[in-house]
């Protein structure tokens, strides 16, 4: 194939993907970053503003307080997913891969089910369950003589974010489970047999043979969790509203962006400040993913069996 022909073939195969990706992903991203460098004037054209929007967002207290609050909350949101969702997903995957387990497919489907439901439905169901008036959770705790543990979890500043995070964990625990389960299935049976002949019991086989082999998958799950958590918005919006109450205690980057960009109640929408928040979200996620790629993934080895 000569050079000109090769270029044409290359273009033929790559162009559709490049085109779609550029229109729907690259262009909006670049446009957002550009918007964050401008200032909008009521009824007038936008003017170039340099990095002043960022200075305002991080330096002016009316902006920086909500921003850091949302950032802190978002970190906690992520931490809860990392410490609860992923270990539980790992444990469930390990249980699912037990050779003697029966009804494996039933469990797998049931645990994965919430992931497929709409976030709005999840939020609504849990609001009903946790309702202080007639929620089933209150009755359950009461029946167990644990009624003193009950509180209006979603309405208290100290508990709202943790509660919402745990609901999100409940919804998405199926994803780490499925990914890790697949990785466990890829480990050849003979390797487990070899470990058995070497005298390892099932726990030891898991910790010394299987776990080291699935670290790359756990790393991948962690990055996915990070990206999804810092892009999260819908569950908070569905359960706590755009104001992410009570008193912004469940406010995360996504909800902050929503209020800034589209406006809410007494706040007017501000596209350029919204773009600034969105750019910050992009930068945070990029830094996180970079840290993973350059510091963690390089030290991990993938194993082909």
């Amino acid at each position, binding site marked *: 194939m000569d050079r000109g022909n090769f270029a044409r073939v290359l273009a033929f195969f790559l162009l559709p993907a490049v085109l779609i990706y550029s229109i729907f992903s690259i262009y909006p991203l670049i446009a957002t970053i550009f918007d964050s460098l401008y200032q909008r004037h009521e009824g007038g054209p936008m003017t170039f503003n340099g990095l002043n929007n960022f200075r305002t967002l991080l330096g002016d207290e009316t902006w920086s307080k909500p921003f850091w609050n949302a950032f802190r909350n978002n970190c906690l949101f992520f931490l809860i997913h990392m410490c609860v969702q992923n270990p539980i997903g790992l444990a469930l995957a390990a249980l699912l891969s037990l050779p003697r387990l029966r009804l494996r497919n039933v469990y797998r489907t049931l645990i994965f089910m919430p992931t497929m439901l709409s976030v709005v439905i999840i939020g609504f169901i849990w609001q009903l369950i946790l309702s202080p008036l007639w929620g089933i959770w209150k009755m359950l705790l009461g029946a167990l003589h644990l009624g003193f543990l009950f509180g209006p979890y979603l309405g208290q500043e100290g508990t709202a974010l943790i509660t919402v995070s745990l609901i999100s964990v409940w919804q998405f625990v199926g994803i780490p489970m499925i990914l890790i389960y697949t990785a466990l299935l890829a480990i050849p049976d003979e*390797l487990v*047999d070899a470990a058995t*002949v070497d005298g390892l019991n099932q726990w030891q086989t898991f910790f010394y043979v299987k776990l080291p082999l699935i670290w790359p998958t756990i790393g991948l799950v962690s990055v996915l969790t990070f990206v999804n958590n810092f892009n999260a918005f819908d569950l908070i919006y569905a359960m706590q509203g755009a104001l992410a109450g009570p008193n912004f205690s469940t406010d995360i980057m996504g909800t902050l962006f929503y209020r800034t960009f589209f406006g809410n109640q007494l706040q007017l929408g501000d596209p350029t400040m919204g773009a600034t928040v969105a750019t910050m979200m992009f930068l945070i996620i990029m830094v996180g993913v970079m840290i993973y790629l350059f510091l963690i993934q390089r030290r991990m*080895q993938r194993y*082909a069996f």
Partner: protein
Amino acid sequence: MSQVTIKNLQKSYGQVDVLKDINLDVEDGSFVVLVGPSGCGKSTLLRSIAGLEPVDGGEINIGGRRVNDLPPAKREIAMVFQSYALYPHMNVEKNMGFGLRFADTPKEEIAQRVNEAARILKLESLLKRRPRELSGGQRQRVAIGRAIVRKPQVFLFDEPLSNLDAALRVNTRVEIAKLHKLLNATIIYVTHDQVEAMTLADKIVVMNQGRIEQTGKPLDLYYKPANKFVANFIGSPAMNMLDVEVTGKSEVRTSDGAVFTVRLPKSIPNGEKLTLGARPEHVSLALPGKGITGHLDLIERLGEIGYAHIDLPQGQRFLVEVRGEPKAVKGQQVGVTLDANNLHLFDSSGQAVTPI
């Protein structure tokens, strides 16, 4: 003493019996090869001895100890797997010493045993490498090394050469034979490759459909197959088979009238239908009219020898080993004569008919 004795071993998966009344003695220091077509139960038998498969009946003794209820690690066995099953995340040294770590062996002893095994297998320079940095043959040696450091009573090999290329397979085969002599080890070895079986074994166990068909020294199986299955399975290319009828005290006749003199036991009456078996190396081409008659279809030339494929009128195919350049050409009518001293007769149930 590390003999293995298996008595009346039974195993089934639901309705399917995969091992039917297996009885087997493996003497101390002997090399026993389990051979058979896929699905014959040879690997299941090996895994049962290892303790990786539970059995439904019978008894397994290793070194005079009943091991039925012991986990694999307590049976004093070591196993080499088909895919080698090396731990990908550990270097060679750790792979070999891994089992000992869990047996609470002191560190110095682990190091000493690993070095010893590495010396025997010439792996010293590779100790710090990971499995993926090794070639197939090297991985194979590490897998064997992992078995050696356990100092087992019995080595179990599950088709260890099938992942190697042809040249390496021959080499490794020789290595394993040497190792057997060197370690004076008791080895049970599973393969579907009869060349491996013939060259390595002190004793071959031919299995078929969960049953042992015959046990014996390699050449005994070759010269005195106990039944049609073994006759067919041992020897390559397979033995030629012809349907014949007994027509006299020491005479059988094929359906197209060729008559052969054979040694028959007295108890066989005239008219009895038998199967006559003759290996390609024990028959020769002749002029048409001699022996059985057929048409030459093709000659496979392997170099020093060749195999002439003869189509018989009954639609059967007969293979004849030829040396040099036969004059016959494709489609020509040829005769095939049999060597009366090297014929096998089987009755209708497939059992060998031996002259008394």
